[in-house]
C-alpha cells in the first residue's frame, strides 16, 4: 500500500532552484568556453542589437540527465519519506524519573524533552488522518489525549507531559497497550536501551534515545535511603549513598535541619565519602538534636584529583525525613519467626511473632495491640476485623499451578506499583477462592492467585504464592510486592519516616514546601520529593528507586510478546538512501558509457587498442 509522501526538511527544496541555476550557468559557461578574442566588437554589437530577442538557452540532452540527478538529490536532501497509511497509533512516553537527566551536548535539554521531540517528529511523519493516542508511563499508565485523537491534537498534547517521580513500568505499559486491538502500532520513547534483538513483528516499536557512546556521561550518584535510629535516647540519621558510575569517586553528603515558620534549611553536618564503582555506602549522622523533627540530606560529587564523579540525575540527590513518624506493629502469625523470614529488615514495621497455637487464644486480646496481621501459611478462624495480609493460606488453595505466566493483572492496583509483571512467571501459585467483597488483581489462566478487598475500613490482601522470606534486592519483584501489600493493608505509605512519591495521598490542604517557599501542587503526577505540609501534619516524601537512578546499567526494554498477529504499517520509510543509491547508479552507468564511448573513439581514430 502506497502511503503519502512527506518531507522532513521541505525548506531544503530551495536547493533545487539553486542547483538548476548553477547547472544552467555551468552549461552556458561550458557552451561559451572562454571568451574568444575578436578583432573588434562593433559589428558584433550591431548584430546583438538586432538578434537580442532570439538568444535563448538550448540545453543538450545531458543537461536534462544532470537536472534529473539534482532533483533526486534535492528530494533526498529534503528528507523525502513515505508516510504510512492512516493508522491508529499509541505513543508511549517514558516520563519516569530517569528521563529527567541531562547528558551529552543537549544544552541542558532533558531526556524527556528529547523523547518528546522524537515523538513529535514521529507523529508528524504519520499521515494526516492517522489517529494518535499518547500515553505516559509514570506513575501509572495514563492517556494524555483521553482516547484516540487527531495527529495535530496529539502533537499539542505532547507539551503537557511532565516528569513524574515514579518508575517507568514500561514493560507492563507496553504489554497492556499491545494487547489492545485498537492500536495498529505502539511506539515507546524511552531512555532505556533496546534489547539487542527485538522480537519479530513490528507492532511494538521501541525508540530509545539512550546514547551509549559516552557511558561516563550517564554516571550518577544518588541517595538511596534515609532512616532515623534512636540509640540511648539520641537521634541518629543514617543515609545511604550509591554510585552508579564505572569508577570510584568522592562525594560530600550534607545534612540539613528543616526549620518551619518560615521554612528554611540549616546545615547541621557534612561528611566526605569515597564511593566505590557501582557501590553504596552508609553515612551515619549522630548526636542530633531531639527537638528537630525534619531533616534533609544532600549528596554532591567532589573533585578527586582530576576526576569528578558524574551526576547526570539531580533529582535523586536529596532525601527528606520526618523524625518520630508513627510506628506500625504487625503480628506475624505463622510457624516461622520474623528473623527467619527476613522481616526484621523492614524498618517501618515492627513484627511480633505469634505462633499459630498462641494466636488462637490471643485473637481478641491482640486485636488492639497490632496495626495489622500477617498470616503466613496460616488461616485464622473466621473473619478478623483488622487489616490482614495472608500469604499462601493453605486452606483456601484448591488447585496447584507450576511456573505459569500471568494471564492478567490489575496494573493500577497499589500492590503492583513499580512492578514489571509482563514476563513474570509465578512459582507454585495456588488459585484462590475470593469472597464477594474482594477482587483479584493477579491471575493465572487457571484462576486468581492474589486478591484484595476492603471491609469495615480494613484492607485485606491474600496471596496464593510465597513471597517470603523477604530478601530485599536479591528478589526485588517479590520484595516490592510484599512491601506494597503491607503498605496497602496498613493504609499508609509512610516507611521509616518518609513516604514514597506516588504513595502520598494528596489533599487540598497539603502544600509542597520548596526551598523557595512556594509551589503549590495540584496533580498527583506532580508530586516530587520534599516536605508537604498539611493542616496539622508534615510529611516527608522521597523517591528511592535504584532502577531509575542507575543510568549506566539501565535494563533493556523487553517488549511484550505479541499474542495476535496483525498487519501493521512499517515506520515511515526514509527514501533518501534509496534516492542516493539510484543517483549513484545513474552516474555509474553514465561513467561507463562515457569511458566506452571514449575508447571507441580512440580505436576508430587509430589510437592504441
Amino acid at each position, binding site marked *: 500500500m502506497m502511503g503519502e509522501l512527506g518531507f522532513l526538511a521541505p525548506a531544503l527544496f530551495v536547493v533545487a532552484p539553486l542547483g538548476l541555476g548553477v547547472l544552467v550557468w555551468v552549461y552556458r559557461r561550458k557552451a561559451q568556453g572562454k*571568451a574568444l578574442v575578436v578583432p*573588434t566588437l562593433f559589428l558584433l554589437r550591431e548584430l546583438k542589437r538586432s538578434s537580442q530577442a532570439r538568444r535563448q538557452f538550448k540545453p543538450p540532452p545531458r543537461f536534462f540527465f544532470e537536472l534529473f540527478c539534482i532533483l533526486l538529490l534535492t528530494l533526498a536532501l529534503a528528507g523525502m519519506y513515505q508516510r504510512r497509511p492512516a493508522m491508529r497509533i499509541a505513543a508511549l512516553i517514558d516520563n519516569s524519573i530517569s528521563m529527567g537527566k541531562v547528558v551529552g551536548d543537549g544544552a541542558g535539554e532533558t531526556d524527556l524533552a528529547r523523547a518528546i521531540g522524537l515523538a513529535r517528529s514521529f507523529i508528524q511523519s504519520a499521515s494526516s488522518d492517522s489517529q494518535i493516542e499518547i500515553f505516559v508511563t509514570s506513575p501509572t499508565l495514563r492517556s494524555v489525549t483521553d482516547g484516540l485523537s487527531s495527529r495535530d491534537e496529539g502533537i499539542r498534547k505532547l507539551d503537557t507531559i511532565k516528569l513524574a517521580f515514579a518508575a517507568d513500568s514500561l514493560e507492563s505499559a507496553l504489554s497492556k497497550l499491545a494487547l489492545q486491538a485498537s492500536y495498529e502500532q505502539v511506539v515507546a520513547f524511552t531512555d532505556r536501551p533496546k534489547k539487542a534483538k527485538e522480537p519479530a513483528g513490528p507492532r511494538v516499536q521501541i525508540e530509545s534515545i539512550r546514547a551509549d557512546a559516552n557511558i561516563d556521561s550517564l554516571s550518577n550518584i544518588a541517595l538511596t535511603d534515609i532512616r532515623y535510629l534512636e540509640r540511648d535516647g539520641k537521634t541518629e540519621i543514617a543515609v545511604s549513598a550509591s554510585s552508579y558510575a564505572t569508577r570510584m569517586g568522592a562525594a560530600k553528603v550534607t545534612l540539613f535541619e528543616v526549620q518551619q515558620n518560615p521554612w528554611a534549611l540549616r546545615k547541621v553536618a557534612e561528611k566526605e565519602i569515597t564511593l566505590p564503582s557501582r557501590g553504596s555506602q552508609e553515612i551515619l549522622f549522630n548526636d542530633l538534636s531531639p527537638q528537630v523533627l525534619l531533616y534533609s540530606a544532600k549528596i554532591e560529587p567532589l573533585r578527586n584529583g582530576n576526576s569528578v564523579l558524574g551526576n547526570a540525575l539531580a533529582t535523586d540527590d536529596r532525601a527528606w525525613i520526618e523524625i518520630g513518624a508513627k510506628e506500625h506493629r504487625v503480628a506475624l502469625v505463622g510457624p516461622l519467626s520474623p528473623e527467619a523470614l527476613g522481616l526484621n529488615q523492614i524498618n517501618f514495621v515492627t513484627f511480633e511473632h505469634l505462633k499459630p497455637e498462641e494466636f488462637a487464644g490471643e485473637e481478641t486480646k491482640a486485636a488492639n495491640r497490632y496495626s495489622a496481621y500477617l498470616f503466613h501459611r496460616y488461616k485464622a478462624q473466621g473473619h478478623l476485623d483488622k487489616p490482614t495480609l495472608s500469604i499462601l493460606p493453605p486452606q483456601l488453595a484448591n488447585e496447584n499451578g507450576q511456573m505459569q505466566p500471568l494471564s492478567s493483572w490489575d496494573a493500577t492496583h497499589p500492590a503492583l506499583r513499580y512492578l514489571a509483571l509482563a514476563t513474570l512467571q509465578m512459582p507454585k501459585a495456588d488459585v484462590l477462592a475470593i469472597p464477594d467483597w474482594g477482587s483479584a488483581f493477579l491471575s493465572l489462566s487457571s484462576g486468581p492467585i492474589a486478591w484484595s478487598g476492603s471491609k469495615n475500613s480494613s484492607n485485606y490482601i491474600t496471596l496464593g504464592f510465597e513471597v517470603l522470606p523477604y530478601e530485599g534486592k536479591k528478589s526485588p519483584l517479590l520484595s516490592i510486592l510484599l512491601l506494597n501489600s503491607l503498605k496497602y493493608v496498613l493504609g499508609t505509605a509512610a516507611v521509616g519516616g518518609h513516604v514514597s512519591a506516588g504513595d502520598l495521598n494528596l489533599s487540598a490542604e497539603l502544600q509542597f514546601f520548596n526551598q523557595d517557599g512556594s509551589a503549590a501542587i495540584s496533580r498527583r503526577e506532580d508530586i516530587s520529593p520534599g516536605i508537604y505540609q498539611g493542616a496539622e501534619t508534615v510529611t516527608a516524601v522521597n523517591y528511592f528507586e535504584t532502577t531509575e537512578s542507575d543510568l549506566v546499567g539501565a535494563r533493556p526494554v523487553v517488549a511484550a510478546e505479541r499474542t495476535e498477529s496483525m498487519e501493521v504499517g512499517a515506520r515511515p520509510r526514509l527514501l533518501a538512501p534509496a534516492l542516493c543509491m539510484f543517483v549513484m547508479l545513474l552516474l555509474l552507468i553514465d561513467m561507463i558509457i562515457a569511458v566506452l564511448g571514449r575508447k571507441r573513439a580512440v580505436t576508430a581514430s587509430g589510437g592504441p587498442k
Partner: protein
Amino acid sequence: MLPAIFTPALLKNLELFKMHSRRAFLGSKQGGHISLKRGHGLEFADYRRYELGDNPRHIDWGVYARSDKLIVKTFQEEQDLSVLILIDPSNSMRPQDHPQKWERAIATALALAYIALMQQDRVSISIPGIKDTPFLTGMRAIHSLAQALSELQPNQPADLTLSMRSAISRVRFPGLAIFISDLLMPIEQVREITELLRAKNLDITTIQILGQSDITPFAQVSDAVAEDSETGEQLEFSWDGDSQTQYAFLLNQHAQQIRSLLLSRGIGFASQLTTQPFDEFMLRSLPATGLLR
C-alpha cells in the same frame, strides 16, 4: 631581411611597377615622377617668352622663324616622391592566434616601399604610436625597413586619431599616403583619419586587409562570449546560422559604406583578404586601383 613571402619572382615582378600619384607634387630631388617644378624634364609643359638666363637650347627656333619672337619651351621636372605608408596599430590588426592580417599588412607595406625605393622615392613607414621610420631612399633602405618592422606588434593606442596626427606631422613634402588597415572601425573614425591626411595635401590610398577571423569570428555554432581585442570589452550573444548571415551582411554593408566614402573623396581603395595570394594582390588587384603602374 625581407619576409619569406618576397620570393625572387615576386621581387622581379614588383620591380616592373612604379608608384603613381594622381597629382604632381614638389619633390626634394630629381626622381622619376613629374613634379610641379618646371625644369629639365621630358614632359612638355608650356611656352613662354625667353628671358635672360634661359638656356638657349630651350628656344623654339621654329616659332622664332615664323614669328620672330624668342619663345622657350618649358618642361615638367621629374622629381622624387614622398611615400608615407601608415599601418593601423590597432589590436584588431593582430587578433589572438590570427597573425596573418598583421603579417600581410607588413608585407604589403614592404612591397610598396620596395617599389618606391626602386624609383628613388623617399619612403617612410609609420605605425602610429609605435614606430615611425625616417624617410629613406635607396634600395638598401628596404632591409632597414624590414628589420625595423620585423619585431613589431600592434599596440592599441589610446586615441588612434591622435596617433595618426602625430605620425603625419612629420611629412614636409606632400606626396603619397597609403593607409593599411582593416578599417573595422566606425565610418566616422575613417572619415576623421582621411580628413587628417587630406589636410596634409596627400594623395591617399587606403588598403583594407581582412582576415578569416573578420569574416567568421566563431568557428562553431553556439552561445559565445566575444572579447574586443582593442578594448577588452566582452559581449555575449548567440552565434548561429542566422547570426552568421546577418554578420556577413553587416560586414559587407560596412565595406560598401567605406568604399563610397573614400571614393567620393578621391581616395583610392583596395581590399584584400589574407586568404588571397599576396602576389596576386600586389600584381593584379593593387595596380587596378591606379596606385601602381
